[in-house]
């Protein structure tokens, strides 16, 4: 009897809950606004990566609003700081969904945070573009994650291809400096396999810690092992440390390579002559490129009163603008009837979509949200303190 009573109480509460909870499709979209969330680190040591990215995203949405918005709706961005911690990121997403009721997220931040949020993303159909690059985001197919940016594997394959192809290296002695982070480990593995495919073994594999005070032991070891091509799998500050230390010991490899998180004009500004043999890959255009997309980026930065030195890492600012650009395009394609499902469907109509040089042309279908595996290579231009692109978009060579 008691049991029966409880059952009725439970059913009633459940019914009330159902009634109170708002309908899904309404979330985040009104007659004149679209609410969009954004989870990126704003404070602490990692903020150097999060801030320019987020500023780019916000600035583009502002630009879009100044152009009259999308189908009469203005985009409102709510930026939550997760301090680069997964538990806080999860909390932030819950807040954005249940309190602010956002339609989608421009990005969920790093890989760690995105994976921790994966289930919620699928449950609430939160379309987003993670700014980390992981196989798990598109393989297997994740319905609401739109991967953007060539995977680390692809980037490092292109680097090794460049050594053997463009630089025509004969039996190069390749050394790898990696961080004990996922990009480091993935990068190391990719380089090892790719070099193997060309019939070369790696000479040195050394760890370069992210907070390294100096890189003496690493430089000396590379020098001792006569490494002439150094590939780094680490973020900017340690790579700068390495280049400076290498300059000190007058260690001059034929080239030092870096991946997208270390391919920024900053590196040339920081190291000057020490960076003259630096070559980086990135999946966004260069700040100084003469493409329509990059002109737009520079113009948006200018209207928002941002100078290069305030932006910080320009490559990330470009990435931020690019991510918002994709969302803006998807909003436009949806038309008036905007909801999580139609947004996803709009993204899936992208076919060789051209961002004017911000990103490589990209395609999403309802079976695959894989990123375009394309990168550009940049070389240091020391007199002008910047990186200049030396190739167009390229993909890793097909190996037999």
């Amino acid at each position: 009897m008691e049991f029966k009573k409880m059952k009725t109480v439970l059913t009633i509460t459940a019914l009330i809950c159902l009634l109170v909870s708002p309908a899904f499709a309404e979330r985040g979209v009104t007659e004149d606004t679209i609410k969009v969330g954004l989870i990126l680190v704003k404070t602490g040591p990692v903020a150097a990566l999060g801030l320019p990215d987020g500023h780019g995203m916000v600035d583009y949405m502002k630009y879009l609003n100044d152009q009259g918005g999308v189908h009469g709706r203005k985009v409102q961005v709510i930026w939550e700081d997760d301090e680069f911690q997964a538990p806080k990121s999860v909390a932030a997403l819950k807040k954005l969904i249940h309190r602010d009721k956002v339609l989608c997220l421009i990005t969920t931040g790093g890989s760690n945070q995105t994976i921790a949020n994966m289930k919620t993303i699928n449950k609430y159909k939160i379309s987003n573009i993670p700014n980390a690059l992981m196989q798990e985001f598109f393989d297997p197919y994740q319905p609401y994650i739109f991967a953007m940016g060539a995977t680390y594997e692809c980037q490092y394959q292109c680097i090794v291809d460049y050594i053997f192809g463009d630089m025509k290296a004969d039996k190069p002695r390749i050394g790898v400096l990696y961080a004990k982070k996922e990009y480091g480990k993935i990068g190391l593995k990719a380089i090892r396999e790719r070099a193997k495919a060309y019939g070369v073994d790696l000479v040195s594999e050394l760890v370069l810690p992210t907070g390294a005070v100096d890189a003496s032991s690493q430089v000396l070891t590379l020098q001792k092992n006569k490494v002439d091509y150094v590939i780094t799998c680490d973020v900017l500050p340690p790579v700068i440390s390495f280049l400076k230390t290498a300059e000190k010991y007058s260690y001059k490899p034929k080239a030092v390579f870096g991946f997208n998180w270390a391919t920024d004009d900053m590196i040339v500004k920081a190291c000057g002559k020490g960076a003259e043999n630096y070559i980086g890959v990135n999946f966004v255009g260069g700040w100084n490129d003469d493409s329509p997309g990059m002109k737009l980026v520079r113009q948006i930065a200018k209207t928002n009163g941002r100078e290069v030195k305030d932006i910080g890492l320009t490559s990330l600012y470009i990435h931020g603008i690019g991510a918002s650009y994709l969302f803006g395009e998807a909003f436009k394609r949806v038309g008036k009837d905007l909801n999580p499902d139609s947004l996803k469907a709009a993204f899936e109509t992208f076919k060789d979509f051209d961002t004017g040089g911000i990103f490589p042309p990209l395609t999403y279908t309802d079976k695959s949200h894989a990123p375009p595996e394309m990168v550009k290579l940049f070389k240091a231009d020391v007199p002008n303190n910047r990186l200049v692109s030396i190739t167009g978009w390229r993909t890793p060579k097909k190996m037999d």
Partner: protein
Amino acid sequence: MAIRSKTFSESYHEDIKLFRTIWLKSWIGLFLVVLAVLPLIGDPYIVYLINLSCIATIAALGLNILTGFTGQISLGHAAFFAIGAYATAIISNRFQVPFWVCLPASGVLAACAGIFVGIPCLRLKGLYLAMATMSFGVVVEYVVITWDNVTKGVRGISVPTLSIFGYPLDSNNKIYYFLIVLTALAILSAANLMRTRVGRAFIAIRDRDIAASVMGVNLTQYKVMAFAISSFYAGIAGGLYAYVMEYIHPEHFTFLLSVQYLAMIIIGGLGSVLGSVFGAVFITIIPEFIKAFAQFLTLLFPALQDKYDDGWNIAAFGLLIMLFLIFEPKGLSGIWNRIKTCFKNWPYTY
């Protein structure tokens, strides 16, 4: 008959009772009822924060047993927490065993690690001990990252959904009740532990270890025991964390987490079970409060909007910690006790 004051003990047994008055019992009952209906009225955001607080409470209880009650400082609590989390993740992934095997196993594994650290640390005191435990934390982080064919290293490892006898707890609201029950159990057993000979021995070691050993407390045995119990709590908390997050990564268990646990028990109150709870809830929830408050302020004064920076939230958090301790060095439990006596003796507060 003598006039009885509000709480009056007639025997030792009565003196060490956990719930001494009917008022206390009813307040706790009311609190439990509020907790029980909360997921029905609150949104998942709040429920998630309470889940995190529960986990932090269990871990902080463990650290308080070691640091607050036994006087052994540890800056390596995150390491035991990580061992628990990874044990749960790896065991449940590899052997598909249910939670009632996983959780105790991770607790026991962490406890073993605790003993392993505790024995060589017997001779160390104060900051030296803090540094030794901290270096253990660094080593654990290194092992987790390097031993990647088991721990999956820097890619992180996903954890299967927690299910109780075939019923999957696949949302925060469902896992909430499970956590509340376990946390209540953890609080009760910690409070009870402190009433036994073991608990009193711990306190004796903290207050004067040499005197304690003269009185017949086996220092070696009890110090190691304190390490084991504390790590057991951390291990259980770690296991629960793995279940709640469903994905763990070495970056979740850094040195800063150890500092955070220390902060919880110091702010809550060293050597106080209730203090651990307060501290854990404070450290977990206050930042969110500050955030909400800051948003409220910007709504109130739109002029602040451009000046506002998320850094202020964290600065306010740091400031709050400092002010709290400057004005109440005994922590939140000190404040709580003062409020309690104030009410109890009302209207004769002094």
